[in-house]
């Protein structure tokens, strides 16, 4: 597909939301902790549904969580 990486700032959003752990975020969005860890490390690009769920958990727009890295 694309040559761009999808970057994110989930880690800082977690810490700004009461130091939420990866496991807590995973439970809220219905994913495994390993998947959240892979997304944070930009090793795995989530589906649109999961990305929207993550953004919704932090109550921010999806663009504030994920963006294309040129």
């Amino acid at each position: 597909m694309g040559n761009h990486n999808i970057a994110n700032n989930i880690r800082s959003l977690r810490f700004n939301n009461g130091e939420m752990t990866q496991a807590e975020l995973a439970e809220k969005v219905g994913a495994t902790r390993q998947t959240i860890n892979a997304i944070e490390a930009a090793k795995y690009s989530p589906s649109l549904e999961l990305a929207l769920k993550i953004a919704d958990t932090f109550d921010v727009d999806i663009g504030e969580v994920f963006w294309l890295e040129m």
Partner: protein
Amino acid sequence: MSKQEIYAWTSLLSSIAILGFYGITVYGLPDSLSGIESDLTSLFVKVFLFAFVVELAIGLFRSKDQVEKDERDYLIAGRGFRNAYYFLNVGLIVLISQIALGQFIENAGIAFTLVNILHMLIGSLLIASMINRATQIYFYQKM
């Protein structure tokens, strides 16, 4: 390591153990290695039992709150099945070719007997299972 990744490891170990045990039972080892045949058989049985016990323990101690499987697991499982399917396709084409050749060649020998083809089919299925799990492990490490 996620539960699905542990399952991939245990299933890979089980497949290796079953294939090894099956291979030794059916074909045996060369004469030079016949001394270690019983040790090797015992090792394969132990590996299989170990993998079985690990899977059982994970199944018994799973937390109800935790998500067992998500989209990443399904994606990785799909890639594993795809590679196993490719291997099985090649294996089946080789086997069908052997059966077809067996119809035309007289004195075809042991390679074309029905029993030998059955052994090859079982071997192909076990190797396909190993390819499936090895692919999954690779992608669990990669992403």
